């Protein structure tokens, strides 16, 4: 997965902020205990899979809880399997789209390929797979659910996104995602919006391959 750019830069790095104002680094052990406590609490909240305004801190915190946070994110994402309300799905997606974690990936992959999962949940799972694979891609439900098989899936790109890391993605994550998309495309039973999403996934992976094989060299001025 060497081609996947894993952004380690943190938008608001506390280390940088602290250094800039000349404040000493806090004690590691005390901080670690505190972190563990916060993570435990955040994981319990997130695993329920229902974002709540009063508990927003937990959804932000869990992204810093590594693989344990990933398990909570996976459990949360499993709500998508039966969810048909795209507003709820967007709420969930917008909190987890930048958490690159293997458990979350597997959950999204499973729902995307699951013929009995809700079509909307499958579309959002397709979007999540693309977001987890590629830092710059910015899937939207609008295009993932409405692109005809031969049309361009107009996936935009996003700057300023911070990707957090849980358990590392499987080494064949991209290939597995592609296979799931192609199985849907070659089948005849998936709902139109799922076929559209599969087309967008397939095109997104192909496009990335093409870009990797044809890197851009800007004109010199």
């Amino acid at each position, binding site marked *: 997965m060497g081609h996947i750019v894993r952004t380690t830069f943190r*938008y608001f*790095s506390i280390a940088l902020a602290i250094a*800039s*104002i000349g*404040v000493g680094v806090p004690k590691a052990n005390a901080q670690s205990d505190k972190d563990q406590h916060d993570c435990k609490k955040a994981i319990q909240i997130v695993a329920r899979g229902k974002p709540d*305004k009063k508990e927003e801190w937990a959804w*932000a915190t869990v992204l810093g809880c590594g693989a344990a946070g990933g398990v909570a994110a996976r459990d949360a994402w499993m709500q998508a399997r039966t969810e048909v309300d795209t507003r709820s799905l967007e709420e969930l997606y917008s909190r987890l789209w930048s958490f690159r974690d293997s458990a979350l990936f597997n959950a999204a992959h499973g729902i995307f390929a699951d013929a009995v999962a809700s079509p909307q949940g499958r579309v959002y799972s397709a979007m999540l797979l693309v977001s987890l694979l590629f830092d710059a891609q910015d899937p939207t439900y609008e295009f993932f659910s409405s692109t005809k098989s031969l049309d361009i899936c107009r996936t935009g790109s996003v700057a300023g996104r911070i990707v957090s890391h849980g358990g590392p993605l499987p080494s064949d994550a991209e290939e597995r995602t592609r296979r799931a998309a192609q199985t849907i495309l070659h089948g005849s039973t998936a709902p139109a919006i799922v076929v559209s999403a599969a087309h967008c996934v397939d095109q997104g992976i192909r496009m990335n391959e*093409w870009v990797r094989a044809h890197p851009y060299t800007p*004109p010199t001025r």
Partner: protein
Amino acid sequence: MPAVLQLTGERTDAPMAAPADFTLSAVDGGLLSNVRWWFMQPMANTFNGDSIPFVREPPPSTFTLPVPRYPDAQRTTVVELTECATQVTCRYQAPAAGAVVAMATLADGRVLGARATPALACGVAGVSGLRAAGRSLAAACEPPAPPTLKLECPSSSTRGEKIACELRLSDATLVFSVSEVEVYATSGTSGFSIVLSAPGPIAAGAVYRMEGPAVATTRLSAKGTVAWRGQTLNLVGSTSFVVKERPRELDEYVMTLAPKADGPGRTTKFPSTNRGGSTLGLYRRQPPLFDSLQIATAATGPNRGLSYVVSVPGIPASLINLTFAIFPGDPWYEAHPVQPGPLNDAGVLICTRSKIDDLRLQAERHEGVTLASNSHYGLDQAFLRRVKLGAFIGAHVSNVAGSPDQIRRQMALELMQEWSREDAYLWILQRAFDAKDVPAMLAALGCSIYLKD
């Protein structure tokens, strides 16, 4: 053996504009008698000293001496110029391409023939097998140049305008055949080798015309054959033309719409700690509307099958998301102190609401709400100015078979690939911008935005 008889006069490789003199003379200046004249067609029936068949005059002629000419099956017309009989100078206007032929009895009794070549009267050969001689005449009696394939196009055109290329043989009297017409077209960085359908046999004097819209700078070549003087000649012709691609204004292919505020989007709702990373703002770049691409395909002409863009799609406004957390009224914003003093769990001074206001202004500037050059939007716009994607789109040509819709979709995909390729490069620039600008923003605050650690 030296030449003894010569014939001089005007060219007869085309109809003559006016009568002219053809003169027969013995090289030694001796007298000639029993002079007879003929006009033979076609001119390809040459007689330049080579041994050729002799045919006796058909009845009712009682003239028994052989006249140098081709057998009946190989000749078209032989007309005796009776008005010139017995004269050594014949005033004659050739009505078509052909050859003037004369025969005479020399002073020593030999009977010899001579003819004017299509290019220039020359001669000297005879029924007794005398060969052409005499330096000045020998050159004039060289065989005519073999026919060539003429392929001609205007040297330049503009994309979409009609262009006509013509294919003909230099010798308008011959039937020829074209077996292959090939095109190598280039546009931008792409090149296409295309084989067009070959016309096959083309009648004598006919012109094969290829007319259609000009699409790309093209080198056109054709191959064929022609039967000439008893052999099959291979013909090759080529030409090229330049196509101006698109108006220059496409160099300026940038976003014409300011970025659009699109709510909080997928930003962090409550930037509680730094550990997971908090996304306060996002800049979301939208690809051009390639699905509304308009293309045209040349259905005829030398660029047949090539498609090009006739209408360059616009670039939609980018979207900017800013977290609500940095706006007054949001729980996160309101959780910050009004006065400086409180420290977070890490012992760092927590930013006041006033500082969060400063942060909001900086975040707006950073994403591009203010259209600042030092923003994601500003970088994007500067990048577009630099890469000139519009020129690429304008120059883009595709050689895709299929229905108009299939061609349009394929071209849209090709353009999206180029966009994505450039986008991947821009993304690296954007990331570098973040790496430099965000720490500077935070440092300028002089406090921690985080309430906990």
